């Protein structure tokens, strides 16, 4: 019965592969049947239905199904092992919701991008891989899926096939590989000093051995943090993110920025809190270096976003900065701050998704990608810009949005963690970054609605369609979490309580 865990993963990967093959075949054959030719109209709908079925099974399995399955072994009797715990449930639920909604958006959007079947094929495969990643029960399984995720998601970055897209795709691939190999280096060492590699709340370090080789272990953990941090765009390996995310088609940039970067976060949480244990690195140079990297990234990301004029790039820099909020919360090694991180994972996923989707819709309807061209855009796209503003307010952290709640937890966590100067510095950086966030997100709203007297734009009524509807739903969901935060906070607290 426990094989039901593998079911959603298999279905989505299988259908995805079929779509990819059919896309490939239609190119290699001169004549092809109607249902595998590129003008088949219902590719999007078919994918949506498949995805819906997969999401339904996934959520059922995650919340009500069996929670453990051991498959064949990969190396040294370390098996492919899926184990569903609360952290996995949180991540998989967010992933599923976002993935499904973006798919609704994509049906219309991808019509004008072309190569629909290749896109949906990858989209489904990556979903399967991500579900498996969230369910992974040991470090080897996690690593396997982490690599697979990189390799399959790169096709989405390459989608447009322009020279710029190809270079960005390669950059994405090689940065991610570099990160993965850093993590692998750490894994080799950590493996020697652990009882086993299964994720255990708290830690499963062999403490005698580990304290004997403390220095090399710290180096190993540091490399794992850097490695998994690469996916989250943490310094020093952040440069790929602002290049790769904007060149993908908007639905792909949305999921890349909202969900796939979070797998780096998941990797870090699994390493620090489920294998090595927070106590092992508390007070060591690793913790301080980690906090340093996270804070620098927060500040630098916001700064660069503020200076960037291409809208999607600006949002990508914003992702760099925002994900490092999460890393900062984790690096404090404090229960309160970590609660904030988990809330921010959810909030940022929803908000950044809605922002990227609105960027896509602006480009889709008006062809404008540059921030300076957005003057007066509220006159013609009122609905979208309103949804965008809702999301932007959430990201800045104005109460009562979700951004405020997570920031509140970061700040109180930082004060509680008792790291003297670092705590104060952290709070200062958070505040400056919040100001910068307002500075790079809000002018679009202000100038969009109030272009000034000398700009003449004909007002047009924008109807709510499937695309702007999705953006709205996401922004409202984020807002609702902000107004009624208790269920999520309680859930996050339960997870955190098992770890400290």
């Amino acid at each position, binding site marked *: 019965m426990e094989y039901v865990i593998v079911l959603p993963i298999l279905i989505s990967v299988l259908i995805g592969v079929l779509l990819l093959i059919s896309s*490939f075949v239609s*190119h*290699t054959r001169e004549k092809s049947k109607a249902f595998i030719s590129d003008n088949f109209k219902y590719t999007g709908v078919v994918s949506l239905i498949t995805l819906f079925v997969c999401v339904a099974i996934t959520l059922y399995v995650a919340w009500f199904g069996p929670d453990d399955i051991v498959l*064949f*072994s*990969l*190396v*040294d*009797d370390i098996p492919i092992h899926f184990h569903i715990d609360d952290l996995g449930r949180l991540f998989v639920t967010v992933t599923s919701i976002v993935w499904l909604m973006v798919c609704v958006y994509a049906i219309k959007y991808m019509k004008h991008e072309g190569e629909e079947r290749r896109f949906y094929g990858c989209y489904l495969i990556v979903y399967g891989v991500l579900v498996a990643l969230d369910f992974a029960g040991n470090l*080897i399984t996690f*690593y*396997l899926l982490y*690599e*697979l995720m990189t*390799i399959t998601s790169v096709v989405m970055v*390459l989608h*447009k*096939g*322009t*020279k710029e897209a*190809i270079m960005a*795709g*390669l950059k994405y*691939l*090689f940065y991610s*590989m*570099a990160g993965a*190999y*850093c993590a*692998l*280096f750490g894994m*080799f*060492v950590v*493996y*020697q000093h652990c009882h086993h590699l299964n994720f255990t709340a708290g830690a499963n370090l062999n403490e005698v051995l580990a304290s004997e*080789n403390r220095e*090399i272990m710290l180096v190993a953990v540091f490399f794992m943090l850097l490695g998994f941090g690469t996916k989250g765009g943490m310094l020093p390996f952040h440069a790929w993110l602002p290049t790769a995310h904007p060149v993908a088609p908007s639905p792909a940039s949305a999921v890349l920025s909202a969900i796939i970067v979070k797998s780096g976060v998941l990797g870090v949480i699994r390493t620090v809190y489920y294998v090595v244990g927070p106590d092992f690195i508390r007070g060591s140079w690793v913790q301080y270096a980690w906090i340093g990297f996270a804070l620098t990234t927060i500040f630098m990301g916001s700064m660069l976003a503020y200076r960037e004029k291409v809208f999607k790039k600006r949002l990508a820099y914003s992702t760099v900065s925002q994900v490092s909020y999460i890393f900062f919360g984790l690096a404090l090694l404090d229960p309160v701050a970590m609660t904030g991180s988990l809330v921010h994972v959810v909030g940022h996923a929803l908000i950044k998704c809605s922002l990227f989707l609105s960027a896509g819709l602006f480009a889709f309807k008006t062809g404008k990608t540059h921030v300076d061209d957005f003057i007066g855009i509220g006159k013609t796209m009122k609905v979208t810009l309103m949804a965008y503003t809702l999301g932007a307010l959430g990201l800045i952290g104005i109460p009562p949005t979700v951004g405020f709640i997570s920031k509140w937890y970061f700040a109180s966590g930082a004060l509680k963690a008792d790291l003297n100067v670092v705590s104060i510095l952290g709070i200062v950086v958070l505040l400056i970054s919040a100001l910068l966030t307002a500075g790079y997100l809000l002018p679009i709203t202000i100038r969009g609605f109030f272009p000034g007297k000398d700009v003449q734009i004909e007002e047009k009524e924008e109807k709510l369609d499937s695309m702007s509807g999705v953006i709205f739903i996401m922004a409202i969901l984020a807002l609702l979490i902000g107004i009624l935060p208790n269920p999520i906070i309680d859930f996050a607290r339960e997870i955190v309580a098992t770890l400290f």
Partner: protein
Amino acid sequence: MSSYFMLIAVLLPIVGGCLIPLLPLNKRSWLAIYTEFIVITTSVLVFLIIVNRPDSGFVVFDLTKELSITLKLDETGSVFATLVAFLWPFATLYAVEYMRHETHEKTFFGFYTMTYGVTLGIAMAGNIVTLYLFYEMLTIVTLPLVMHTLTKEAIKASRTYIYYSLGGAAFAFIGMVYILKYGSTADFVAGGVLDMAKIGNGTDLMLLVYVICFCGFSVKAAMFPFSAWLPKAGVAPTPVTALLHAVAVVKAGAFAIIRVTNFSFGTEALKGTWAQNFLMVLVIFTIVYGCSRGLKEPHFKRRLAWSTVSNLSYILFGVITMSPMGLLGAFAHMICHAFMKITAFFCAGSVIYKTGRNYVYELDGFGRKMPKTFFAFTISGLALMGVPGLCGFVSKWDLAKGAVTNNTVLSFVGVAALLVSSLLTAIYMLSVVVRAYFPGKDFDYSTISDVKDPNWMMTLPLIIFVVVMFVIGLNPSLLMSQLSEVVDTVF
């Protein structure tokens, strides 16, 4: 099984190959059938010998009273023999189709078949003299294969090849003489044969000789600074570069190093000495050096050859850690790398066979036109990078584990080198893959409209190798349980 079957296995391809120019094989298909028949018969024979391994050695003849040419197959030799015997029939099948567009086929298949026998001789060598004899023979029989096209470039390459190889063998000879003088016997005995009483205070000399001998044999395994011949030898027809310069010849070098390290000098005497550290530095350097040269190389086959340089040093790294875990990784990588690299080379060969294109930048858009070939190439690239689920990860995992258990600074540097090299591998392999599948939006497919996959003789080996890569990757215990038994007999 009687021990003289080993002699038959070695002699059958050698004699069979010699006969090719003499026999009236006028039609091409007769030549193909004859060659394939000899190769398959030998392989079957080798498998039978391995399954019912004869306990005693077979003395072919005596050179002097103490020195004899002996064939003896132990567990370590079986690993190499199995690998070679499995790959040769497939490579021959590929060669039969590939050589259609080359000349002098009779000479080619003659030497190609003889090489099989000589390689088996190396695998079955029972003492260091026999090993040395076959090792020298290997240089000589493969020389005409490198020279095959008789272009100026090929002749130059073969000259480089022979200078390097004979020079290396001369160094190895010093090691052999030392073993004969200071060892209790010339035979291969697990744990080494050195007689410490005879050596007395001369341990430094012993280590120096070991370093010289290691370097000598490492010429064939293309360790830095002796690696320059291998990419040059890429001018040979692809079946030669694929089978000989990625498997048989280069791994014969690695195999000989395993023999002298674990069976003649013995790890006991070598572990923790300056010799080990010195060689480890060279090996680690080669791992990174080979990859970075590969990265710069636009010529498709030469790029793969540089990759071989780096990967061969993975094997040597496993050996030089001198731990059971490291040797296990070395054996595993010997086998896994064979499958990965032969696949990659066969893909390069298919491109040359079908279009005559040699450079990486000429491969735009080929993914759509040669789907089977480039699927196989993608898989081999991912495997070489060490993506879990494919065979490359299995061997890399064991190599790294062996190094980490060693727990010295240098071995951690080695692990880092393995990973840096993985990253570089990702760059030079995947940039080809991306180019083939995503040639750019404006790419005009009509310029390559006549490009197609080659026929089954060239794609069947690819498909089988891809399946093997997946099987080893997903179920490594199949392979590793066998190999760890072998390692247990060594330590």
